[in-house]
């Protein structure tokens, strides 16, 4: 078995005069190591200037997403062994501005998350004394979409997000669906107006790669197509039946 494996890491420091470059690092090749372990090894033992985000090491915090050999993955869940013999190329997530090395700027995503009102909206004022009950069946309607960990791998997989400035992208649309389908939520109509506007669902051409890379099986592509079906139904109701409710 090989002793070492090479990592080609994208390096960029905004304070340096030189532009971005790939730098090679040799790390021990261990069966039980994931990419994130190798990155931490580099940071601790070889080059302390390497910057990257990580937190939980167990696929739930959603902060260690990077492009590995061109594919967006959670680095805490990608074993070196699967990528042997190397070299392994590690880059920041695609389509996001790079702050430094493997750290991206996610402001656009955070803004969109707010824009789609990814929280429960009540038509009436919240009554804090009242409980909002929900059955397991009602929960199962949206549970899949609520598994999203905001890791943004789906953005990095979506060519439309790269091509169309303003497109909100897969995860936030799936999250809008997560709240639409929640029995306690009344924000459906409000979100539909947002989704029909510039940047919304109609940019999506169902490439489907977002669902392929999702580590939590959220299936954002499916969520968006369901949204389109609902949007089309609302459109025809509005135009054919002037008295119709959407």
């Amino acid at each position, binding site marked *: 078995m090989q002793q070492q494996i090479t990592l080609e890491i994208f390096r960029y420091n905004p304070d340096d005069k030189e532009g971005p470059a790939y730098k090679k690092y040799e790390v021990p090749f261990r069966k039980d190591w994931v990419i994130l372990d190798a990155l931490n090894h580099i940071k601790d033992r070889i080059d302390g200037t390497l910057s990257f985000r990580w937190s939980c090491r167990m696929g739930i915090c959603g902060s260690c997403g990077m492009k590995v050999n061109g594919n967006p993955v959670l680095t805490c869940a990608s074993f070196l062994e699967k990528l042997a013999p190397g070299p392994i190329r590690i880059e920041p997530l695609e389509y996001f501005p790079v702050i430094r090395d493997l750290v991206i700027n996610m402001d656009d995503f955070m803004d969109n998350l707010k824009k789609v009102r990814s929280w429960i909206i009540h038509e009436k004022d919240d009554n804090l004394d009242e409980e909002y009950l929900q059955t397991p069946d009602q929960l199962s309607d949206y549970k899949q979409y609520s598994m999203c960990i905001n890791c943004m791998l789906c953005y990095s997989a979506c*060519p*439309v997000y790269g*091509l*169309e400035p303003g497109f909100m992208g897969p995860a936030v649309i799936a999250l809008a669906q997560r709240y639409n389908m929640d029995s306690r939520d009344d924000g459906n109509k409000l979100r539909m107006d947002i989704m*029909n*506007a*510039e940047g*919304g669902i*109609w940019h999506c*051409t169902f490439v489907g790669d977002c669902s392929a890379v999702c580590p939590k099986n959220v299936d954002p592509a499916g969520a968006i197509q369901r949204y*389109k*079906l609902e*949007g*089309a139904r*609302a*459109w*025809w109701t509005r135009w054919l039946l002037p008295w119709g409710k959407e």
Partner: protein
Amino acid sequence: MKHQFEPFWWSWFSAGGTLSALVLPVVMMIFGISVPFGWIDDPEYDKLKSLIAPVSSRILIFICISLSLLHWAHRFRFTLYDGLQLQHLNRSLAILCYGSAILISLFAGYVLWNF
């Protein structure tokens, strides 16, 4: 509102996609492949003519044709839009694609009307 009519076109795209996926392959298999290769005989003229002559068949055929064309128009518009990165031509692409689908449908309507 740039996206006001997207749901409208998308509806035709979907309906046409379903219809063309269900109907076209078998018709192509007959007229485009089996008949030219001589695996089966040409459908008889009189039989074919009498099958299509009733108004109901002609309406059905017209629906298949126009929806398939609208399906093409919407899909091809986005193929050009994203595939060739012609975002700045959005309006012209829409007019070109939907316009030609509608014109060809009108021609089909003319042929079937005077059948």
